[in-house]
């Protein structure tokens, strides 16, 4: 594998999901109808992952993901692979798009690797660029499932955390450098007890982990939980800023934030492609606030790109990378 050097200042990355490429759409459609073998499913998904990685490399992103091409939904995908879950019935996500909201019907346990194949494949075609391990967090898993077994949320979340930790171990054994846990549900219930509950679960997942530990939280009222999450056992918070007009930045300053920051500068809910200048300005804004140095700032979109048309996702990433390059020159004297 060719060596790839991730820039020290303002490395660029993605949050995880990417628009489903045609072969992934086909794979998922045929899987839903039960018309596809496991091998054929894998083949189609790999074709899609290869396309995603090509887009990332074309745009110049440094730290990649597999684009979550085999995941129809961030919760269902894992629920289908954990013991204790039963498939649910159709619940709408938006427009006329649905997911089978899973139901917890027994004790949740890890069975076998859930997303390892996709990650390994992505790594094999990434030209040496690191690929993040991206898993849905226990808090979000519970919030977006129905629970008919536990009744007690803490008990459910901790079992989920243990199952996810078991999954994380698989990647660590294969040399994973970046592990990201997605907890988008956390910002939707911005109370102290909730933040502490999620923190307890993260302890289980990250205890003794030497890879870079990242938690992604997006939208909602992050500033409300900020004081309770800052001592989470993570190296990096990956947060959404662009969509909320960078409202969160002054709070980071106020709380003396000193971890790494995944700095969301691309609005994933808007079809308008941010210009290079616009993204650069966002980086300048963060730098002028003098919260952390450029080596602690990872430039990325607010959230997964899956809801955007591919063409727009690509353009957005390209401009983001260009802006990071300019910032690197200006703020870190790097070419």
């Amino acid at each position: 594998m060719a060596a790839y050097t991730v820039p020290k200042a303002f490395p660029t990355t993605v949050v995880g999901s990417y628009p489903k490429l045609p072969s992934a759409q086909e794979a998922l459609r045929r899987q839903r109808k039960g018309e596809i073998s496991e091998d054929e499913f894998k083949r189609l998904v790999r074709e899609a992952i290869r396309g995603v990685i090509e887009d990332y490399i074309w745009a110049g992103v440094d730290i990649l993901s597999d684009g979550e091409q085999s995941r129809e939904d961030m919760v269902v995908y894992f629920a289908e692979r954990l013991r204790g879950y039963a498939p649910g019935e159709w619940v709408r996500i938006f427009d006329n798009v649905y997911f089978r909201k899973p139901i917890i019907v027994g004790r949740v346990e890890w069975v076998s690797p859930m997303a390892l194949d996709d990650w390994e494949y992505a790594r094999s075609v990434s030209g040496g660029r690191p690929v993040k391990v991206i898993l849905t967090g226990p808090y979000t898993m519970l919030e977006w499932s129905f629970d008919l077994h536990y009744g007690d949320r803490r008990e459910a979340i901790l079992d989920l955390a243990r199952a996810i930790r078991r999954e994380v171990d698989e990647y660590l054994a294969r040399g994973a450098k970046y592990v990201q846990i997605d907890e988008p549900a956390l910002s939707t219930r911005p109370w102290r007890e909730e933040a502490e509950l999620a923190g307890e679960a993260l302890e289980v997942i990250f205890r003794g982990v030497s890879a870079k530990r990242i938690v992604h939280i997006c939208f909602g009222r992050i500033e409300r939980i900020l004081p309770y999450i800052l001592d989470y056992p993570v190296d990096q918070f990956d947060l959404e800023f662009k969509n909320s007009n960078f409202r969160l930045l002054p709070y980071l300053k106020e709380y003396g934030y000193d971890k790494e920051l995944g700095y969301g500068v691309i609005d994933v809910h808007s079809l308008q492609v941010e210009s290079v200048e616009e993204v650069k300005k966002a980086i300048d804004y963060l730098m002028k606030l003098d919260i952390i140095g450029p080596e602690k700032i990872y430039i990325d979109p607010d959230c997964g790109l899956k809801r955007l048309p591919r063409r727009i996702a690509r353009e957005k990433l390209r401009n983001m990378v260009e802006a990071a390059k300019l910032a690197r020159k200006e703020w870190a004297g790097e070419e």
Partner: protein
Amino acid sequence: MVKFWASVLGGYPRGRLARYTMRDLDSGVLEPYKGLVELERASALVVGAQLASGMRFVVDGMLDWHDIFRPFAEAWRNVYLDGIIRYFDNNFFYRIPVFRGEPEPQRLVLPGRVKGLKMLAEPAGVKIVVPGPLTMVKMGRNESGLSDYDLVDRVASVLALEVREAVANGAVFIQIDEPFLSDPEASRDDARAAAEAASRIAREAGTAVTALAVYFDSPKPDVYEELIDSKVSLVSLDVGDAPARAIELLREKGCGGHGLVLGVIDARRIHDDSYSNVRDLVAKAIDACRELEEVGLTTTTWLDLVPLRFSLRKTYILGLYTERLAADLGGEAVIPISAKPEPYLAG
């Protein structure tokens, strides 16, 4: 003697028929007229379930609404739709309505629906739901050049027109949904704007019952204080999501002379609600607002966040518990099918 009645808060999920119909309508495979007929069939199922469960007011299920804002945003000039974004703390996303100017209706959304529903709803009353103007503006994007509150006012006047025509066509219950008021960021000024907007809509509702509904959580006390100033007949609260806070609120602030609708059946989870919990909650609420003559019981939110099967089951539970509660708490259950005809049912 307190009268108890039941009505679900809002829309239902789409079953297979409605899903396929919507797909074919969206892709242009199905003629709009045929789509309407299919949707009416799908709607008849949820109307039937409500009638069979003893609902006093029934909705058509809003099966074709992609989200609460969409049908209105699509019917108004100067409003367009952007990307999708999360709807409160649900794993459900709505399309952001963007106001580029004052909304002007090109057509009305409600009157046609009311006509269709009225034929199925007898002997229950027709209930319609409109998005609260404040929630629509706050959850949308305001590029109109107007201040947020001025825009809220304009949205209210368009919705007032909708409501007037809906009532003229037979709607007897108008609910204005302001879930944004349960948001921790909602301010006293927001609540005042929402209350005024609701008053304005209620003025056009004639003899129909009007309700201002807040759900997903309890509003903060200062927000609640303002919203109960609204000139609507009923205040509808989600008391199931945070029961202790909701009861505390009612104890401290009362009902401001409004009738009360209590969201007690959990519409976001699928387990059967515990009857004793519901009874305790309702008893406490009634105890906090002693002047109440009637209490509506409802679901904590719309039923479209659970699968169809569970939405029907929850409807049944709501009806069943309402009857049991009336008996246990020494009240009377108002059930259209067994009750003697009431004035609003005539005509």
